């Protein structure tokens, strides 16, 4: 059995603080002055079980997570303010992952984005990289691949 390259020991400090010490994670502190760095991960996926599972995995890794069922839901929530990294599905009813990213860009929000898709094509992969994605994961993905992307994506302020 190979040891996963990512574990709680190497997880960002803020995450360990939030979870390990039993304090509420940054996402639940919205509106309070204690949230300085946008260190929450937002997960956007129209598939409820994938959304729940991804959120669960990220929480088990010590991250603060918010989940959204659609691009519109995320955009309307104003969660981008405290989001340090966005993990979004590519094909969703309504606005796609790509459209979500360009919406954010046009709002002047520069978020590291990790695209996730259940059917990866070379064209989508190339487009994602061209759009400056922090990662492109094809479902199902290993924890190691996710960790790799997160390490690349997460702002240093959260470490």
């Amino acid at each position, binding site marked *: 059995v190979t040891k*996963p390259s990512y*574990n*709680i020991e190497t997880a960002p400090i803020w995450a360990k603080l939030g979870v390990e010490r039993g304090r509420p994670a940054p996402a639940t502190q919205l509106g309070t002055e204690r949230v300085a760095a946008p260190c929450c991960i937002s997960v956007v996926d129209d*598939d409820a*079980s*994938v959304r*729940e*599972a*991804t959120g*669960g*995995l990220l*929480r*088990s*890794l010590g991250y603060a997570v918010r989940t959204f069922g659609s691009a519109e839901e995320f955009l309307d929530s104003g969660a981008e303010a405290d989001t340090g990294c966005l993990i979004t599905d590519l*094909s969703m009813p309504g606005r796609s992952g790509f459209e979500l990213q360009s919406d954010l860009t046009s709002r002047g929000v520069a978020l590291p984005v990790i695209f*996730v898709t*259940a*059917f990866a094509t070379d064209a989508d992969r190339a487009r994602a990289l061209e759009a400056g994605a922090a990662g492109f994961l*094809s*479902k*199902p*993905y*290993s*924890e190691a691949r996710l960790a790799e992307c997160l390490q690349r994506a997460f702002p240093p302020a959260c470490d």
Partner: protein
Amino acid sequence: MRSRTIRRWRALALCLPLVLGAALSGARAEASHFPPTQPAAAPETGTAAHPGSLATGGPSTRGDAGAIHRAALDRPGDTPVASAHPTLRGYATVALLLLQGALILALVLHALRRRAAGERARAARAQLAPMTRRAAMDEMTASIAHEVNQPLAAIVANANAARRWLDRPEPDLGEARAALERIAGDGLRAAEVIATMRQTFRAADGARVAIDLADLVRDALLLARAEIEDNGVTMRTRLDPGLPPILGNRAQLQQLVLSLVAQALDALQAGPRRSRQLSVTLARDGAEGVALSVSDTGPERLSDDVPGLSICRAIVAAHDGTLSVRRGSEVVVRLPAAPAATETSP
């Protein structure tokens, strides 16, 4: 629009003999009054019809034409009007003959060109058939992959999460349990996707007939022959005779065979060109079944890597059979024989 023009011309070409016949019979009726030198009068009418050429022609030309004209007019017993009329008619006949000849030639050429174009189109279609088949399969594979990958992604993420919760200094059993419960649910959901797919296949198959698999495999290999030869692949087939018929959908089973062959060819393309070998065998499997094996000398691959294998599995499952991958380069499909009472359909 173009073909309508052609049809019109063809009708005209067919009508021409009637016109021509009428003209000729008219000419023959006048023939008794016709001078034997009538063909010599040709230049006269010709020049008369083209005053321009008459003007540019030298005085000698004009003089000759005039002489011939006079000669024709001077024939005793022929009034000028009576002689000019049959001459015109003769020229009309010749012109019509030439016109008809030209028209027939044009139509023949057109028909030949059309036949050549048809053959080219047929060849192009034959070349295209495997490609469209591929495209359709790719599309289907994409939708299946999408449907199945969703619960798989959830399962993998939940499993990792459960492990993480348990690995903590103080294991969070509640979170781990929740993740495990989600795994169970996702597994059932994946199974549901497969079941729906299988049902779709069953619903689509309409008529299930008894099929001689050896015939079907032979036909399918014929279809794939060009692709096999183009890739420099040697094919070995062993199709045992007298195998029991199986009950199934002809189109789906043909797609299965073609897909397995296509996957083998894809694998062979990855290896060296000189030792490309594809082997297809069909033999009895136990007491009541048939086993189809498609193997190649290409590099081994994981069954998950092969697009199109999931669709093969679905087809085989819809026929109550099993599909297994051996040594990464051989696929064995086992299908149950049809109940003894059924006859092989033609």
